[in-house]
């Protein structure tokens, strides 16, 4: 299932950002998803890193271009640049670290402020392998996700549990939104310059379908 086989041969390119506190495992989630790697001694990310993987959703090849951001970035100008053009986001926390869960609210706010209104968001409780140290109950996080219309998955990048699922759910949600949107927008907009693999921007209809699309999503 490696993306290399597909190369540029894709139907959609989605920009997805990984956000959350420093040390919750964003980089390992990404490497687990894209290259099936896990690095015990990974250092904290400086700036932003990129990785891609192409998956198939409803027989469309979708290339996910995932931006792995540094959890401790202080400049809003920089984080907002990261969110620019993102159609999906995963807010990650560490189930054994309550503060990282509490900060999800902040991340969500920042995301909503800077990203497109229709951005699809998933909440990820990572490090589920540390169940014996669990500090954030699954139900609590699930409730929070529901309230905020977020996808929710608990994952373990270490044990490779639910990682694929989490990304897939998000990508599928984005795809569904986009394909619906295209229909909504009509052919005129996309036909003329519809090469393979346009970056999807959801901006054309800013606040208009907010509720509606969010409902579709979750």
């Amino acid at each position, binding site marked *: 299932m490696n993306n290399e086989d597909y190369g540029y041969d894709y139907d959609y390119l989605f920009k997805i950002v990984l956000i959350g506190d420093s040390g919750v495992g964003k980089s390992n989630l990404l490497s687990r998803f894209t290259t099936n790697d896990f690095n015990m001694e990974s250092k904290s990310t400086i*700036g932003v890193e990129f990785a891609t993987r192409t998956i198939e959703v409803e027989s469309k090849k979708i*290339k996910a271009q995932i931006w792995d951001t540094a959890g401790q970035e*202080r400049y809003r*100008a920089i984080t*907002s*640049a990261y969110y620019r053009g993102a159609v999906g986001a995963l807010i990650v926390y560490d189930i054994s670290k309550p503060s990282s869960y509490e900060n999800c609210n902040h991340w969500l706010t920042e995301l909503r402020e800077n990203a497109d209104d229709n951005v699809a968001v998933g909440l990820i409780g990572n490090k589920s392998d540390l169940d014996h140290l669990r500090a954030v109950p699954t139900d609590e996080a699930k409730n929070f996700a529901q309230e905020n219309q977020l996808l929710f998955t608990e994952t373990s990048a270490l044990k490779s549990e639910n990682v694929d699922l989490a990304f897939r759910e998000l990508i599928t949600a984005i795809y569904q939104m986009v394909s619906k949107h295209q229909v909504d927008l009509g052919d005129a907009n996309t036909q003329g310059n519809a090469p393979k693999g*346009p*970056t999807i921007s959801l901006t054309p209809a800013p606040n208009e379908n907010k509720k509606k699309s969010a409902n579709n999503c979750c």
Partner: protein
Amino acid sequence: MEDLLKVSRIVVEIANNLNAKDYVNFRSVNKLVHNHQLAGPTDDAYWESKLVEMGLKRVYDKVDEKENEHIISFDGENDNIYDSVTIFDNIRTFTIGDAKETYIKFHKRFQPYCMKLYHGNFTHFFPEKYDEDPLIQVKIFNFISRYNKSNSNDDYQFSRIEQNLKILKEIFVNSVLQEMEANYMSENYEIVGKFIGVLLQCHEETNAVEFFKSKTDPALELNVSNTVFDEGGILNRELFEKSLDIFRDYLNNKIEMVDVLFEDQYPVILQFIESFIQENVLDFFNELFEADDSRLRYMPSIYFLVVQKLCTELKESKNGGPDFRQIVKDFLNMYLEPRIIDYLELQPRELKRQSSLKFQVYQEEVASREKETNEQIYNSLRDQSKMKKSMSDDKNDFLSTFAKMLRIPNSESQKKQEQLQLAYNLNLITNNLQNIKSLVSLDLCCEMIQDAQNRTEEMYRFHTLENVLEIVKSKCQELFKTLVEQLSEQHIKPGFEKATDLLQKYNSNDMDRVELKLEGFETKVEPLVQFTELINIGDIILQMTSIFYKNELVHKNIINKNKDFLNDVVQSKKNFETMLDDFVAEGLNIGINKLMDEVEFVFNTTQLPEDFNPTEKSAQREINPTQCAVKIVELLSNHCFLLTGATDKGTIDVYQQEIAERFFNEIVKHIKKSLISSDGAIFLICDLNFYYDFVAYKLRQKRVVPLFVALKNVGQLYIVSGKDSKELGKMICDVNRFKGIFSQEEIYEFVERRSDWVRVKRDVQKVMYGLGLKDCVVM
């Protein structure tokens, strides 16, 4: 006359000059003399003096004498128990008062012999019972001589007897020698041995030894081959062993003979063997080595064979005693020592001579190969340049062709010809660089080290010889020193000098400009790759010499690491290492310069303006490192790990860090030349990430990683939207963000490269200069 005898002094004086017979008569001349003048102590004194002259001792108290048998012997009745053979052994002392009686006992046994001698009557000299026993005869001769000493106051008689005894002894010795000869001829060696015993008893040791020597003329008995070396100067071991076998068998034969003839009565064999070594063995050696010095190289084998054959394989010798073999070995060592020293001294000289020769041959080969290649290059280029016609057919002297061409006034042909020369020169450098590693021949150096090692092993075989041990050590040291000096001065130094010279001359960009290129030749060389091979070779050679030093010199205690640290051997080894290090450093420095030229070249030629300042459409491309970045990382990868395994980790670290640092500077320069839009920033970030990953995860040089972290942060200066220009200004002030690697001025310079700089400039400056200091502090 009568009155004279009244004077005691005169009487005594006379008496003292008379022999026994005359004395007895004289004493009877009258009563006065008999009873007074020559009576009592005076008479005793006369006899005592005779006994003393015969070697007897006067004792005062007979009881003190432990040899009680003597007391019995003074019993006149038992007088007959003495005979002329045993009396001197049995009677060794006398007491006051019995001197005369004692003397009579000796007189009775020996005076008849003396009288025979006095009258020159030699026939039937001994009683019949002694006729067949020369040993007893010799004993009697000796005793006669001893007895005759008592006659010394009668000089005439004494001398005559002595003289005749000497004549008789000579006759006797001659007949003994005759008997020996006859018995020797009939190989009755035991009988010969008996006669030798007789001679030794006779104090005729010289005659005895001479007789033995006359029977042992090595020249007659030894037929040794003196062609143990073949025409090529190679030792024929088999033949040599055979020669030694002949020597050994000869000596063993003599050892046996001496044991039979002399037993341990008189030392003969050691002197014999010594003179044999001195004369025969040394002669044999002189003949062997005189012809050719280089034969000395076999000295260890020869020496140990000689010791084996002419010492270890010798028989035990009763005559030589228990230390016989050790003494023979000492002789061998003593007499062969000068040759051994010759050999030891020759080794460093030989190594120097041979290595010089080999290096010279190698240089000549390289030179002729180079000339050949140069001709090929030239000819091939000339063909390409289609100037065939204007060229002479003189292919051999291509340089003179050049010269001829230079004289052609036609500017067109001159231009062409200049181009040809340029192409020739550049292609030449390229080609030479490709052959850089042939400048130092590993094979040749290995051969040389091996040679030195073998020589050391051989020389060291002599360390058991106490006398030469110090010479062995000093010559082994000298040999190692010679090796190191030869390797460095004759080969490695010129090789590396040429290599660095070539590296310096090489410019990859020149090659790209030349139109004429050789077919089949790789035009793109990676100078460092080539040079690294040379470093690798140098390192292997260094390692080999170090192993040599450790295994041969230190382990064998030829050099004491702690004591001899100021030794010139250690010094020359250090010099060698330093020289190589210096060449490596210089070469790497040149190489890094070239590499950075290359990096700059790639930046300038392959980084497209659109890479970081894309159009709306090209901004939609995937986020991957640019082609330029990929190429550069590939270039660096090719060079950074060249030294791995070739040299020590310290050098590699320095080398890699130097590359990384200078690469960092190239990136900084490059960014400052680029124009970056906030859409393009992500591609710059991606490139910078790519460089960071290379340094942090491939190079793993922790020391330089912060430089690349700072670069990542620089990348973020461009992703910030122009709308956030105020925050951009804050970021410039946030020097901490760049970990002190960039100054605020420098960060400002970076920000100037934003494609929207003109628009954001004012806001940025406002933040930078318009705000108080406290606003510029970290948020």
